[in-house]
């Protein structure tokens, strides 16, 4: 048995830890960045974006930085995430691209502190930066940021006063709902309807019917990709005239791919960024490279993870030769990323911008309608 094990792990290491050395260039540093993300289970869509973003950043590492990496699936259980981190910690680690599932992050945090490994993630949920743990860096606006943008757009730009909030009964949905509630309260608006939807629910006509019965002037969604598309399609089929402002899952190109452009007319969504919407030559280059590498459309999670790894690698290029040095660089530095400028608020929250994208009914590519910068919210845990 042991012999079998050692043969296997030997193959594993030769297959996975392939160093991409740049020929000729003087070595500015070495970076070992394991990618521990959910590739199976209900978050595999987002986890795959994370993986792709991280892998792309590692593939075009800055000059002189030698990169080693391996991708490990964390599934959806905290236990699997901790095991994956423990496995990665067996070697020398510069930083870890860590799962966007908040619960998994919470489980990994104490271990990351023990080992002294910076975790860079695009998780927007859960109070992962509220644990007084200096080793976590959130490269995606937390729910406190995105939901403030979400609520402000609904009330300030659209002038709506009677929102109906429909959220998923998952970590993503419950956290989003709690922060939406908070943000609306600050704005002096009270939702006329709030309901959680099980992610396994097939038909959303019942909840749509109930929401409309409350006479809302806007439908505010915080659902995962499939349910968001389903809801929008059923609303379109029933000729619902109330505008829809959805959560970040709407901006994922795979969500729009499920719908006809006409069904999307007038729908808006909050997100950190929308790479496919373009905006700068760098962004377009990123999107092109992503498409070429993975035959898929990039989303904000991919971009956030890409930006985060770029910042890690830049730190290594800048001389950060240990995990501790990288942690310092991340917590003290500023990084001009593709999605936004990242800078820690002292707790590891790096992203403070969110955008609202809207669909025109002719294309599945949204355009950025409104940008919110310098939002400073604190993501709270669920316990009030």
């Amino acid at each position: 048995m042991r012999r079998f094990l050692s043969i296997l792990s030997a193959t594993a290491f030769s297959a996975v830890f392939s160093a991409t050395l740049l020929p000729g260039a003087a070595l500015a540093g070495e970076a070992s960045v394991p990618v521990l993300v959910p590739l199976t289970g209900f978050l595999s869509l987002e986890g795959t974006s994370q993986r792709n973003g991280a892998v792309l950043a590692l593939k075009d590492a800055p000059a002189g930085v030698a990169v080693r990496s391996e991708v490990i699936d964390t599934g959806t259980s905290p236990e699997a995430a901790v095991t994956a981190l423990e496995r990665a910690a067996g070697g020398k680690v510069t930083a870890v691209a860590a799962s966007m599932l908040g619960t998994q992050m919470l489980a990994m945090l104490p271990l990351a502190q023990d080992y002294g490994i910076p975790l860079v993630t695009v998780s927007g949920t859960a109070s992962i930066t509220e644990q007084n743990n200096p080793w976590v860096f959130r490269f995606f606006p937390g729910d406190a940021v995105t939901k403030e943008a979400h609520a402000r757009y609904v009330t300030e730009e659209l002038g709506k006063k009677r929102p109906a909030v429909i959220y998923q009964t998952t970590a993503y949905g419950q956290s989003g709902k709690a922060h939406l509630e908070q943000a609306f309260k600050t704005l002096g608006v009270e939702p006329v309807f709030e309901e959680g939807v099980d992610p396994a629910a097939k038909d959303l006509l019942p909840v749509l019917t109930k929401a409309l019965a409350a006479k809302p002037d806007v439908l505010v969604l915080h659902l995962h990709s499939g349910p968001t598309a389903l809801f929008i399609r059923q609303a379109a089929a029933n000729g619902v005239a109330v505008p829809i402002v959805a959560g970040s899952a709407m901006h994922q190109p795979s969500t729009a791919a499920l719908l006809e452009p006409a069904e999307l007319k007038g729908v808006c969504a909050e997100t950190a960024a929308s790479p496919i919407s373009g905006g700068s030559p760098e962004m377009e280059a990123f999107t092109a490279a992503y498409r070429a590498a993975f035959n898929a459309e990039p989303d904000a999670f991919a971009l956030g993870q890409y930006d985060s790894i770029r910042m890690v690698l830049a730190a290594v290029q800048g001389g950060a030769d240990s995990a501790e040095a990288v942690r310092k660089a991340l917590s003290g530095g500023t990084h001009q990323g593709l999605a936004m400028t990242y800078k820690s608020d002292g707790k590891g929250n790096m992203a403070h911008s969110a955008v609202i994208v809207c669909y025109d009914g002719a294309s599945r590519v949204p355009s950025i309608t409104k940008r919110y910068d310098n939002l400073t919210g604190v993501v709270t845990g669920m316990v009030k």
Partner: protein
Amino acid sequence: MVAALLAYALLYASPYGLRVLTVAGVYALAAIGFQIVFGLGGALSLAHGAFFGLGAYATGILGSQWGWGFAATFPVSLLVPLLLALLVGLPVLRLESHYFALATLGIAQVVHLLAVNSPALTGGANGLPGVPGIVLFGWAVPRGLPLAAVVWGFVALGGLLAWRLARGRWGRALTLVRDDPLAAGTLGLDVGGLRLAAFALSAVYAGAAGALAVHTQRVVSPEVLEFPVMVSVLTIAVVGGRGRVAGAILGAVLLLHLPEWFRFLERSYLIVYGVALLATIVLAPHGLTGLLDRLFPARPAPLPKPEAPSGLAIANGPLLRVEGLTKGFGGVRAVDGVSLTLKAGTITGLIGPNGSGKTTLVNLISGLETPDGGRVLMGSADLAGQRPDRIARAGIARTFQAVSLPEGASVLAAVAAARLERDGSIAQAEAHALWALERLGAADLAAKPCAGLPAALRRRVELARALARQPAVLLLDEPAAGLTDGEKAELAGHLRAIAATGTALLVVEHDMGFLLPLAGHVLCLDQGRPLYEGPPEGVRSDPAVVAAYLGEGAR
């Protein structure tokens, strides 16, 4: 196996290896509990994952929100699942096989819904962080080797307890309840009580495992209540070897390590895991322990010395009086006001055409059916409507028309099952069982497996099992069916010998050539009503009996 695990943990394992080993320990403990309810008790409890999750949440909430320490949270984590198991066990355990499985699944789903939708208490779908580690007598157990050692210490403790229980009388009794609940009841075993105890004990194991799981991962979230946990435990139990403690441990170690070995395949590793799982179950359908048993067969245990049980004192005169017993199914009166008296040392024949109510009468007396009216008196006690095990304990034993013996057991073990309720140890029960086999001239069968015995020998073994109860009253349902003339003669001799010790026999039989010379008294039923009662000589000449049998004829 223990030595191999220990050597691996101490010498080779990295922190990562120890982490996987620790998690394997958690699942091993949960699977040991599952072996009790599912492996031994045969009840597919799909609430096992819920009990695991409840233990996890008890520790998670009390530890992270209330600041309780391990010494306080751990007992609560055992208690909460136990209470739920006792609460739901009573109504749910009455259900059979898949209905029981579905009911427990429903309970598990409700618990999961509550956990996800009560954010104020449970943290909702996000769960709760900040669960403290294990503190044993003031020593905060660090992760790595110490944590693995503590978890596996619990596995060893729980495993030892379960192993002793499984090998002991309780485990044997539970196995019989699984294989043949009807027979178990008629052998004096409290089927409901045994099932409830197994269900409750399994919940305690699951709760303990859940508590250790959150101490290991330091976060509690609804994942601990989700169906995959349940499926993992079930898979571990079956792949390891159903009903075996060693199976739970082997299965957990294998199945938790299996995916880790293929991690380098990135997204495809679970495909390989699935193929490996399929290959394992095809190659070892009785589990890893079953495979090991086949590769290294255990030496047969030496037979005990036969020993006559200290007999119940059987009084002279009437032992059992049945008065006006009545039972209807739908509109049909299957048994309609039947009375009879069985006297010590006598053999009574019960005859009648097919469907005349003979077997129903035996079922009513032995408690497998509840009578609509009438009395079953043993001495002054009315047993009518009592549970089968109570009736069996009062001194009534029976055999079945369709013999059912536990296929996996040896003949000796099958007969010894009759003594579990009465004897102090397995050894004593087997000594008494061998005595019973010897009395029927079947001692040479003792070491043989029940599976594959020819019909005549199966009847013999079943009779030995009933005899081992040393019954005051013995009810035999067609004991001669399928026997050759020689075997029938031999059986008649045995029955006379049994009666000679004072036992009262009631023999249901079609074969008049066998029965009439044997019985001192005959009762003939037709459509549930007594048609003839009297000496055997009068049966063939009674016009009513002849008419009832008509073409079937008094052979």
